[in-house]
């Protein structure tokens, strides 16, 4: 097409009707495209999210064979739900005999660059935190990302003591985040040299989340029976 043809094709400039027609017409085409793509991809995205979540949960409790979602109610109990609502959700994991292995709790907090989102496991029988999985983080590659790979840091969460007091309203020893190599108690988390801010952020997230959730879960264990 040359310029002469182009000039012929272009509508007369300045008429409001042409502008409304263009804007509304293109808006409708765009809306149709977005809705079509959304409808087509929605079930696939949901399936992908479920698979990613399952992978994370079974990494924390390798013997688990199924899981259920529970939501905390204002009355102080947990109720089983089917939809993943993001807020106040606790995952309960069961072995092949449908015996409760433990619960997995979501935690979020500010890292060095952006929000870190993670899951950590809680074994009510032993009253310890066992294992974690980082769901989302944009920490510095090679430094902050050590929170996902550093073996010594991961070891902090192998048997992290979160025993609940007799009245069941708080932890006997609140979790403490300490300097690298200075851990002396089972309720302390050693940070990582070279990734201090990121590892401290993870430690603080778990500290706050555990103080909020672990007493509630421990006192309402019967709610998680299958």
């Amino acid at each position, binding site marked *: *097409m*040359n*310029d002469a043809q*182009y000039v012929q*094709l*272009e*509508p007369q*400039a*300045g*008429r409001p009707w*042409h*502008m409304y*027609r*263009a*804007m509304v*017409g*293109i*808006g409708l*085409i*765009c809306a149709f*495209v*977005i809705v079509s*793509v*959304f409808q087509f*991809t929605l079930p*696939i*995205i949901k399936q*992908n*999210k479920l698979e*990613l979540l399952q992978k994370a949960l079974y990494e924390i409790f390798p013997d688990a064979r199924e899981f259920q979602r529970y939501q905390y109610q204002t009355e102080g109990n947990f109720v089983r739900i089917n939809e993943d609502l993001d807020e106040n959700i606790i995952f309960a994991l069961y072995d092949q005999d449908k015996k409760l292995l433990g619960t997995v709790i979501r935690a979020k907090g500010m890292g060095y660059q952006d929000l870190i989102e993670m899951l950590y496991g809680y074994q009510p029988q032993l009253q310890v935190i066992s294992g974690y999985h980082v769901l*989302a983080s*944009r920490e*510095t*590659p*090679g*430094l902050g990302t050590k929170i996902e790979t550093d073996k010594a840091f991961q070891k902090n969460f192998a048997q992290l003591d979160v025993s609940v007091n007799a009245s069941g309203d708080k932890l006997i020893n609140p979790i403490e985040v300490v300097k690298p190599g200075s851990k002396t108690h089972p309720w302390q988390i050693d940070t990582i040299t070279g990734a201090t801010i990121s590892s401290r952020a993870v430690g603080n997230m778990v500290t706050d989340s555990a103080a909020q959730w672990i007493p509630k879960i421990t006192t309402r264990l019967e709610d998680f029976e299958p």
Partner: protein
Amino acid sequence: MSQEIHHHNQAPVPAASDTQDTNEFIKGLWLQNPVFAQALGMCPVLAVTNSAQNGLAMGLATMFVLIMSNILVSSLRAFIPRQVRIACYILIIATFVTAVDYIIQAINLELHKALGAFISLIVVNCLILSRAEAFASKNTVSKSFLDAAGMGTGFTIALLCLGSIREILGNGSLFGWQLFADNFENWIVMILPGGGFFVLGLWVLVFNWLQQRQENKEPPSHD
């Protein structure tokens, strides 16, 4: 740009049309490469090329948006008045960016997380708006498609070049495959933003050197 206007002013020559079409595609790969020659879309070029996979995925996503928006802008060019053209182009581009965002989530959620906000930021990639304004709004659908495919391929190749080098040096791997033994010390600066500037600078140097060499080899024009 001047080259494109020059094309329009020429009378259509059917015999030369195939060559012109090929040129529309080739120019984006080499002479008018969006990254190495025009320095367009630097934000994703530097931000997401910390691995070859991320670079390739961002390049393909941008190419998809570029091709689809060029086709639609070219198809509707007769109905878009000048006063509202930019708003219309942005609307079209934003639509395909939203579509590509859902498509990437459907293909691979972890890749979607790795690319993060930069998928949405394709909307403001000046490469796409510039092709809509400078080319698709003045040319036929087939030419606009070839232009977008060429520019998109050039952009993807550039991102892949950066991502590969940064991943090899910074992580000792390529597409996740370890290339070196365990005693290889990763050059972490390469996957940090500073490394992006270093590698981009080196690629621009290589690109210009090759272009200069080619120009020197070509026989002088007798015009």
